[in-house]
């Protein structure tokens, strides 16, 4: 204090430099500290390791006749597996891809033409679309229809009409043999 007071030009006003630096230092340290604590708090709400460790699902395809579909559970979500008819495949492949809301060819969406595997969760707001069972509405394009907000999907699971922005997602999967598939 004494030293400061004797400096030339040193008046009653504080010399700002050093005190400001101290203030910034304190605020910055506090912010970093709070941030470092905030991340564990936020991240604790993300999926825990036991949730992440949920096993992949293996499915036997042999009992599914042409034209039939089954629904299995994977990571708490329904996965649709449809054994498509020739008719359904050719309808899916004859569409002008550029005219679709979410352009994707049918070939990009399947590994084996008859087997359509996808997550059965509407990309609008997460309802399960209808069309898996006999007698359920399949929508205007012969695929699936979401009853919640009226989205129509075609026989390739692509969005054709309604509020959903994207096609039904295709999960990672591989054929472990002719008649079984491993999802996840």
């Amino acid at each position, binding site marked *: 204090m004494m030293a400061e007071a004797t400096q030339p030009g040193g008046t009653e006003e504080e010399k700002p430099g050093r005190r400001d630096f101290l203030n910034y230092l304190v605020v910055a340290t506090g912010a970093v500290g709070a941030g470092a604590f905030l991340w564990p708090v*936020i991240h604790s*709400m*993300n*999926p*825990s390791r036991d*949730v992440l460790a*949920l096993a992949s699902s293996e499915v036997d395809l042999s009992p599914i006749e042409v034209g039939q579909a089954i*629904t299995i*559970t994977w*990571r*708490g*979500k*329904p996965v649709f597996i449809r054994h498509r008819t020739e008719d359904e495949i050719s309808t899916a492949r004859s569409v002008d891809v550029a005219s679709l*809301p979410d352009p994707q060819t049918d070939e990009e969406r399947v590994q084996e033409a008859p087997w359509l595997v996808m997550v059965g*969760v509407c990309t*609008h*707001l*997460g*309802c*399960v*679309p*209808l069309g898996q069972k006999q007698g359920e509405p399949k929508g205007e394009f012969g695929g699936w229809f*979401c*009853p*919640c*907000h*009226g989205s129509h999907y075609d026989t390739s699971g692509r969005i054709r*009409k*309604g*509020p*959903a*922005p994207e096609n039904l997602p295709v999960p990672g999967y591989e054929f472990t043999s002719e008649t079984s598939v491993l999802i996840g």
Partner: protein
Amino acid sequence: MSSHSAPSFKNPVVRWVDSRLPVFSYMHAEYGTFPMPKNLNYFWNFGALAMVVLITMILTGIMLAMQYTAHIDLAFDSVERIMRDVNFGWLLRYVHMNGASMFFIVVYIHMFRGLYYGSFKQPRELLWILGVVILVLMMGTAFMGYVLPWGQMSFWGATVITNLFSAIPLVGDSIVTWLWGGFSVDNPTLNRFFALHYLFPFLILGVVMLHVVALHVTKSNNPTGIDVRGPQDTVPFHPYFTAKDSVGLGVFLLIFAFFVFFAPNYMGHPDNYIQADPLVTPAHIVPEWYFLPYYAILRSFTDDWWFFSWFLSWIMDAKLAGVLAMFGSLIVLALLPWLDTSKVRSNRYRPMNKWLVIALVIDFIILGWVGGKPAEEPYVAIAQWSTLFYFFALLVLTPLIGWIERPRPLPASISEPVLKGGGSAAGATTAKMEKS
């Protein structure tokens, strides 16, 4: 009638406490001698009613939490146990369930009061915004509470609403996974919703305190919307409004009791008595009735809607537009003090804007009606036009009418229209005959 005359308490214990912690002086000043405009009508009951419902909800909620189990395998059964085995469990649950509906009815009427009599205007802007904050917190609390019984509507409502956040560009999916604590609505989701459903009412209570503090600074508006000119325009809170609020409370409790005892499930959905099944979506998912208007706004935005494809499709997809519009419908309310350009508060003296407010209320009711209908014509078109009107009325017509409207002449004081100019002190009680 001055609020600052410190009372002298006769009870020595009260005096001892009050000189150290002035809770008694505070209550006396804020709820005893507090000056209230003497022309308040029954619309001014609803703030007090909302407070009563909030306390009822917190009390019954704490009791229910003692019996409830937040686990996907046990939650549904624990609620049925509350209904069948817990002493008065059925009463606690039905009061809590219908209390949520009552809370929204009361708050919606309370908001209409503010809207119609211009209570949101200068100097009560912050008071109004705090009210909107309370509404948003209430919506969050009600939504999470509805998930807890783990019925079909619980599960699918939670799925649809949490999926709203996936519309946010880039980080949307990560946010949804974070909210869920997994890859779908599941046990971690139920657990955190229970924790937050317990927390939020106390946040609401905190904001309500701020709301009341702000109210006691700016003081109550009144049906004429003009400022209090002096003590001749006011009566003390007690006994005038303790009495008037009690009358309203009696009527309100009768209506509340009617639903609890005679139609406890009238405002609920039967599908929520079916346990949640992640593989089967109910034929149509409807939120609780108090969310239906917002739900209708959300659903209005489809790819084939002309408004969307003309104005919005180049910048965002229909899903994001719907989500933004839904949240926007609440944000617009918070901006109302600056959207309304008229200096006249009460719509009694605003011949044009009065009809706009009435039209807005009808529009809100229509939105609620179509929000509960399936996503098909003619409901989609009605919802879309009603959505447009909602925003057009608040963002365009409200400022415009404020500029072009010629308000009717305002009375010189609160006393004048009642006493026809010649009032004396005896007018204090006759002023209570206020109609409409």
